[in-house]
């Protein structure tokens, strides 16, 4: 947290601290929570939500299928079918809760980990795998499901979301925009600039930060010394921390923030306090930097488990439901597996495609040379 020799500096003497320049409190704030880890339904004065049994089963199904898809992708990476996978394990509630708060006309700007949000948007999960397999850099049309491409350069999508939201406002539409980013991303200048622009233009955007406690090997303390949701206040809009493993609270808080945006009241920062249960990506080895006890402790807060406990206690689903869902999961896994394996390698000439929309003579020349060069091997091969 601090550089080594900082510790060697003079001890703090707090007596001289003045009231006008108080250090902000860094004690852990209350999370907005509607469903405890034990599966108890609780209330919150500011956020309530009324969901039918169907709704709850739907959220549960979303989370289960998302997790199943994610596990399949991890397996496919191990089998060499994907070059890399960034698992969302543990973050299902944050993603399904926020994703299900969206209207069709809302627009989503994800990072590279929002598989659950993509699911809510109706993006075919196999489409998400193209970039991880290495056949494309993003296989879907963002405008089909109002779900932008995955963005890898940390934080940059928050500005795109802000600009998009400025456009929504210009159009007089009452859609909202949501930008996903991580705890690590909160340090990027782009995110601060997105806060500034969205506040100044009062843009209808929700900044949804999944604080999964880690940015690869760095704990959140390396990014901030106070809770992240507080960052918003100094830019002139509200921030709220929600239990990111509580799908109901995520849904309620995100919905409220989206409605605020629609009403023309501008941006909101939502910090979903959650946990990255797995490795950063399949390339990562968390044993290098974090104790397994931490993960184990968070297992007790599992987002799927707690909803299941609640549903069982409340008799909201019978065994048949769970069995059917199990089967649906397997079918999804199989479909994804087969789709990935069937994914063809792109034509080498695709290297040149779409570099420009209007065409470009240099690209044309290089494409032609490349094609001739490739063809020369075919000839030799004859």
């Amino acid at each position, binding site marked *: 947290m601090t550089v080594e020799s900082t510790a060697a500096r003079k001890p703090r003497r707090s007596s001289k601290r003045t009231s006008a320049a108080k250090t902000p409190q860094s004690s852990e704030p209350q999370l907005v929570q509607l469903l405890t880890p034990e599966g108890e339904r609780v209330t919150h004065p500011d956020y309530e939500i009324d969901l039918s049994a169907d709704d709850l089963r739907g959220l549960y199904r979303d989370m289960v299928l998302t997790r199943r898809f994610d596990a399949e992708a991890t397996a496919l990476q191990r089998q060499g079918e994907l070059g890399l996978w960034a698992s969302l394990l543990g973050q299902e509630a944050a993603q399904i809760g926020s994703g299900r708060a969206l209207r069709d006309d809302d627009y989503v700007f994800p990072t590279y980990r929002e598989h659950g949000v993509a699911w809510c948007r109706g993006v075919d999960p196999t489409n998400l795998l193209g970039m991880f397999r290495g056949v494309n850099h*993003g296989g879907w049309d963002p405008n089909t499901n109002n779900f932008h491409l995955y963005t890898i350069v940390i934080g*940059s999508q928050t500005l*795109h979301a802000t*600009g998009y939201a400025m*456009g929504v406002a*210009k159009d007089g539409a009452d859609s909202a925009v949501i930008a996903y980013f991580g705890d690590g991303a909160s340090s990027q200048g782009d995110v601060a*600039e997105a806060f500034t622009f969205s506040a100044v233009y009062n843009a209808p955007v929700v900044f949804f930060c999944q604080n999964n406690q880690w940015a690869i090997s760095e704990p959140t303390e390396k990014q901030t010394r106070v809770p992240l949701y507080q960052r918003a206040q100094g830019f002139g809009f509200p921030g709220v921390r929600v239990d990111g493993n509580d799908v109901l609270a995520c849904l309620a808080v995100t919905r409220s923030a989206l409605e605020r945006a629609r009403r023309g009241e501008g941006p909101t920062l939502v910090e979903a306090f959650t946990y990255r249960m797995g490795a950063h990506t399949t390339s990562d080895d968390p044993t290098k930097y974090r104790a397994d006890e931490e993960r184990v402790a968070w297992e007790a807060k599992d987002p799927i488990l707690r909803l299941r406990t609640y549903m069982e206690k409340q008799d909201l689903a019978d065994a048949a439901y769970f069995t059917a869902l199990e089967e649906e999961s397997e079918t999804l896994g199989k479909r994804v597996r087969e789709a990935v394996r069937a994914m063809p390698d792109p034509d080498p000439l695709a290297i040149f495609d779409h570099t*420009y929309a209007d065409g470009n*003579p240099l690209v044309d020349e290089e494409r032609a040379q490349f094609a001739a060069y490739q063809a020369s091997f075919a000839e030799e091969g004859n």
Partner: protein
Amino acid sequence: MATQKMSIAKALNESLRKALETDPKVLVMGEDVGKLGGVFRITDGLQKDFGEGRVIDTPLAESGIVGTAIGLALRGYRPVVEIQFDGFVFPAYDQIVTQLAKMHARALGKVKMPVVVRIPYGGGIGAVEHHSESPEALFAHVAGLKVVSPSNANDAYWMMQQAVQSDDPVIFFEPKRRYWDKGELDTEAIPGPLHKAAVAREGSDLTLAAYGPMVKVCMEAAAAAQEEGKSLEVLDLRSMSPIDFDAVQASVEKTGRLVVVHEAPVFYGSGAEIAARITERCFYHLEAPVLRVGGYHAPYPPARLEDEYLPGLDRVLDAVDRSLAY
């Protein structure tokens, strides 16, 4: 024919006005582009006439300006953003290189990026540090961007029209020390493609290739050389990415000699790319190596030294002599 005498600054202003009038999706954004009309007054009067919703004063953050312009483009807008000076484009460099340039390809063509980034560039105005640079090579190396620079009022007007209409991002370098130079603008002419070079002056002994602010210097050099009986052809490249190599090749096949002139440092500059490619294309035509005249491998100097630093008439003619001596 509707021609008018007009400065480059005014031609750009008229072109932006026309773009705002023609297409409601066109936006102008940047620091101080509103009431002030930009520090060079290129957007003068536009906010007054098109409102704060179309001509937008932004917070002081270049990454934010380009990043939000990308978002606006995704929403269907066509933002024309102003970077106040060449040296201040770098905070936006990440958004330009990793997002703006690549978004169309990343989306397999599903989204377009009709964003124009206007950058007043180059030296010669006696300014302090960061206000006189020519960073075009740093953009031209990046696929997905078009990089252009007009040298005269007519091109300023029409190239801006074409840049705004382009579905690809265009880095539009405006030769700031030429802003006040006047030329004939024909607002009814139908322009050629944005990336085509123009023969600014015909000649037979040697080709001078330049763009933006250096075209004028090359024209003066050609006139001076004429008096010494040397016939120089001057090519106005207009576009640094792509480069109209066909035009350069055609000229060099005729003259056998090429000198490329730009303000940017020679080392890794656009002259290198032109020299390399034209030497490959015209190996048996070249009577002399392609020579380059440009800036040095040093920071742009304090204003009192810029006359020495910038390629001027004499340095161009010196290179011409060296080339002709082969």
